[in-house]
């Protein structure tokens, strides 16, 4: 299984303002792309555009030769993990994962996932008793609940300490080995391995 994401001459608008322009890049199976940039340079906007949330843009986003603006079917194979953690505060971790299973329409066994992200002992705790780093890991478990081709991670490293970053690195490698593509934004000094680098400052209009 091989996938290919091509981005051609992208120009993005929000509320009649241009965020960035002239952005082109290509990324294939088994590759990771790091999106760098200052605050407000449009990193998040770029990821959200690829995920299909932002529809107000010029240029093309092609996934396996499908124009995503014309045909949004392939988008169901995308996973977007934003900065909001998608957790219900009053529920336990286990219940939260069950809710996601309903959204993603799978009944996959969660035991493996829990071990991969090292959250087994948190399963029966309420979300509002967790630390930010723990919440982040629980939030990332959405990646493993169901299979996807493209992962779009917005600031996944925030709140994670070094050995947890390694966990995430392994998970991403596994995903890429299976033919997946990963795009992530980061503003920290620690980085995961990457094959492509985009610096949003080169395209942003401030």
């Amino acid at each position, binding site marked *: 299984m091989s996938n290919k994401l091509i981005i051609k001459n992208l120009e993005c608008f929000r509320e009649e303002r241009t965020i960035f322009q002239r952005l082109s890049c290509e990324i294939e199976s088994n590759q990771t792309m790091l999106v760098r940039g200052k605050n407000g340079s449009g990193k998040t906007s770029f990821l959200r555009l690829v995920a299909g949330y932002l529809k*107000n843009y010029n240029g093309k986003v092609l996934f396996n030769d499908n124009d995503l603006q014309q045909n949004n079917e392939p*988008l*169901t194979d995308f996973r977007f993990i934003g900065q909001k953690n998608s957790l*219900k505060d009053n529920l336990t971790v286990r219940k939260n994962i069950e*809710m996601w299973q309903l*959204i993603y329409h799978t009944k996959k066994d969660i035991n493996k996932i829990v071990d991969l992200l090292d959250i087994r002992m948190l399963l029966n705790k309420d979300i509002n008793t967790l630390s930010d780093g723990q919440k982040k890991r629980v939030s990332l478990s959405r990646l493993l609940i169901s299979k996807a081709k493209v992962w779009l991670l917005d600031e996944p490293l925030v709140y994670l300490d070094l050995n947890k970053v390694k966990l995430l690195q392994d998970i991403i490698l596994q995903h890429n080995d299976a033919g997946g593509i990963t795009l992530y934004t980061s503003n920290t000094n620690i980085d995961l391995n990457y094959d492509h680098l985009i610096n949003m400052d080169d395209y942003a209009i401030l």
Partner: protein
Amino acid sequence: MPFYNLIIRDLKLAFFSSTNFLFAASFLILILILVPFVFGTNVGSFSILFTGFIWISIALSILLTLDRVFNSDYEDGNLDTIILTQQSLELIVCSKFISHWIANCIPIIIVIPIAGLLFEVGIQDILNIILNVSLGSPGMVFIGSAISALTLGSKRAGIYKTIIIVPLYIPFIIFGSNQESGLVLLGLSMTAFVFSLFTSIYSLRLYAE
């Protein structure tokens, strides 16, 4: 089917939350328990008031839990997740409508016959009220959900919602208290459905940006 899964998810969330099914039903019961203390026990026209109280408790139970339809999912980011897994916003919006109606109106409809018998309302009248409520309350849910979709992310949405929604509920309540206007209520609900569907889809699309 992903569509049913979304409904089940919303119902589970409703059940786990503090304002769950019991909340809606207890609302009506609470109002009805307080009535005799307010008006005295010798009021002969209880059956007239009864219909009114049911509509008021339906309106309140929908209004007070509106945040659960789109807002809470929008705030914590789940709305993004849901939008990406479903191809059409129509299905998402419809599933929200249905689950909110089940969570807030069905409990009241179930309580109506019991409460009605306690207040010595005739069985024919009770059946009429149930019919009217079943036809009218979906429309109220649609309108409430659509307006809350419009105001996603706004901190001042509370008063705005009430001031827009309550006038829109007036036709439902007027026709609801009239016993033979079930079909008018059905018509109102259908109109509300079309407009609410488009408003919700449009604003979800914009707020997803």
